[in-house]
């Protein structure tokens, strides 16, 4: 297991470097002169040139990329063009909000969705199953930023039950949580249902029943643990969506997180902030993926043992080729 985890961490490094390379390159070739952006239209051409030189913007692409990487390793993401504040500091201050919201929404969605998905699968074609299927179809089709607006209109403005904006305590969390959660819930329900239906048909489930095992244990011990891999995979992807979707949800509810920070800087073409924000969110996503991989290894002995017993795999490959 340890070898499996360390192997995963090592495999993450080139991917993260690649991400930095891709994002840096795309933004490097964006039109517009950063120095001009910083100084505004009133500055003279000479002032702009001087600033460009000072910021190293006249250096060749390779030099700039290398410098950015070097700074990044020290935790320095440059300074905002708009207010000259350190991007890393701003990000560190804001990301807990974004992470908290994403984590809470995913947890909230996953718990309800997995339970509903299981019941839906074992009671296939029942009324409950139909409700779950219908809900999940609507849920994956509803744009969450619109759902957020509708909830604000109904719950905050019409019924005056909950605050419409800000993020100052649990009462403020509820609406963003539901807004985010519905879509994720729908997705997780669908995958739980289909994955469980798939597993329930397997021979080893019949073996467990033939032992005289109770149905509830068959479902939870034998079926769910085998069905969980695609569910975890989806939850990991949803987490990525939640991190990216922060730009929407934080805009709708005026939450002072990373997403809002990002959106505010887009209109100002504040490249270091966009770059830093995107990279940081991608990094968080990478960490989430790592956790997902570790969970795979935890749930499925076949995955972690690939690293322990290469030989088994070779034998299997042989059998496959021979067939």
């Amino acid at each position, binding site marked *: 297991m340890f070898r499996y985890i360390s192997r995963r961490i090592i495999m993450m490094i080139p991917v993260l470097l690649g991400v930095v390379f891709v994002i840096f390159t795309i933004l490097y070739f964006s039109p517009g002169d950063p120095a001009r952006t910083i100084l505004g239209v009133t500055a003279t051409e000479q002032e702009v040139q001087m600033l460009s030189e000072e910021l190293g913007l006249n250096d060749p692409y390779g030099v700039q990329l290398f410098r950015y990487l070097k700074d990044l390793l020290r935790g320095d993401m440059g300074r905002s063009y708009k207010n000259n504040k350190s991007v890393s500091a701003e990000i560190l201050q804001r990301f807990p909000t974004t992470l908290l919201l994403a984590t809470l929404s995913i947890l909230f969605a996953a718990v309800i969705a997995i339970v509903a998905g299981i019941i839906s699968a074992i009671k296939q074609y029942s009324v409950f199953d139909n409700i779950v299927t219908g809900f999940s179809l609507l849920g994956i089709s509803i744009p969450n930023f619109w759902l957020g607006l509708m909830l604000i209109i109904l719950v905050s403005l019409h019924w005056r039950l909950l605050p419409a904006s800000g993020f100052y305590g649990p009462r403020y969390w509820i609406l963003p949580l539901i807004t985010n959660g519905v879509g994720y819930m729908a997705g997780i329900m669908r995958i739980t249902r289909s994955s469980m239906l798939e597993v329930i048909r397997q021979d080893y489930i019949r073996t467990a029943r033939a032992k005289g095992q109770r149905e509830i244990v068959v479902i939870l011990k034998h079926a769910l643990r085998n069905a969980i891999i695609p569910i975890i995979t989806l939850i990991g992807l949803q987490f990525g969506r939640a991190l990216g979707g922060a730009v929407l949800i934080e805009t709708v509810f005026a939450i002072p997180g990373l997403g809002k920070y990002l959106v505010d800087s887009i209109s100002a073409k504040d490249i270091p902030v966009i770059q830093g924000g995107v990279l940081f969110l991608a990094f968080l996503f990478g960490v989430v993926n790592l956790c997902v991989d570790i969970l795979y290894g935890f749930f499925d002995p076949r995955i972690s043992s690939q690293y322990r017993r*290469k030989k088994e795999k*070779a034998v299997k490959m*042989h059998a496959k080729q*021979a067939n």
Partner: protein
Amino acid sequence: MLPLVETKGLKKHFRVPDGWLHAVDGIDISIGEGMTLGIVGESGCGKSTLGRLLLQLLEPTDGVIRFQQKDVSSPNKAQLKELRKDMQMIFQDPYSSLNPRMTVAEIISEPMRRYHLYKGAALRDRVTTLMNTVGLEQRLENSYPHELDGGRRQRIGIARALALEPKFIVCDEPVSALDVSIQAQILNLMMDLQEEYGLTYMFITHDLSVVKHISDDIAVMYLGQLVEQSPADRLFEEPRHPYSKALLSAIPRPKIRVERQRIILKEEISSPINPTPGCRFAPRCIYAVDECRTSNQELVEVDSGHFVACHRVNEI
């Protein structure tokens, strides 16, 4: 009689995470024209790889393949296309061996279309003839494979293999996916076709009663190597290699009141990854001595046409 197909020291090694897998490791066979060579062995012994090597679906690591006395071990594209007209294959799985998106007529006519052998009405006539030959009703020509049962599907595969009028057909477990009553129908068909068209078969199977029924000669394969080769009846009367003995004794026979000495082998077949010198069967062999574990015995003719690869063949 000159052999139609012949191999010398044929090898195929696959790269696997732990090293090299010696799937086929130095095989010499020769099949006379119009004859059937049966290849028997358990899963993982390399028998399917051997068939695919002969048909150039896999490239050999080493060794020579001769067809009609010509070396065809590494043909170029044009030679390969010519060669394939003479060599065809009947596959094991009547489901995955037929393209589900093509009709019966399209499947059977494809080889002829690719070789531009017949056109228009002549092509349709030829397909009808082939369907008759293998016993498929003509009304099925526009059916899709998924609409048909396993036996009929296997007949389509046979018709496709016959389309180019090949001389040599590799049959890779052609009946093992079928029920016994259907299996007998297909075996009879294959034997009739052989007689009618003078076909040469290499019949790969794990089913010993089937292989005995259809083969003239049988080669027993174990972990990439031949351990015994002999005329079919001879092998069943007097197997000489310890593995062949165990294999034959293990077949459950549909007869009662027949007392037989059954040899139960210990352990299971391993895998020929980075094999060490010595007999591959030695770890499971009750007769194995030190010599067996250190040096490998080549096939030796112990009787006319009967070859065995065992150090202790004369003692046991």
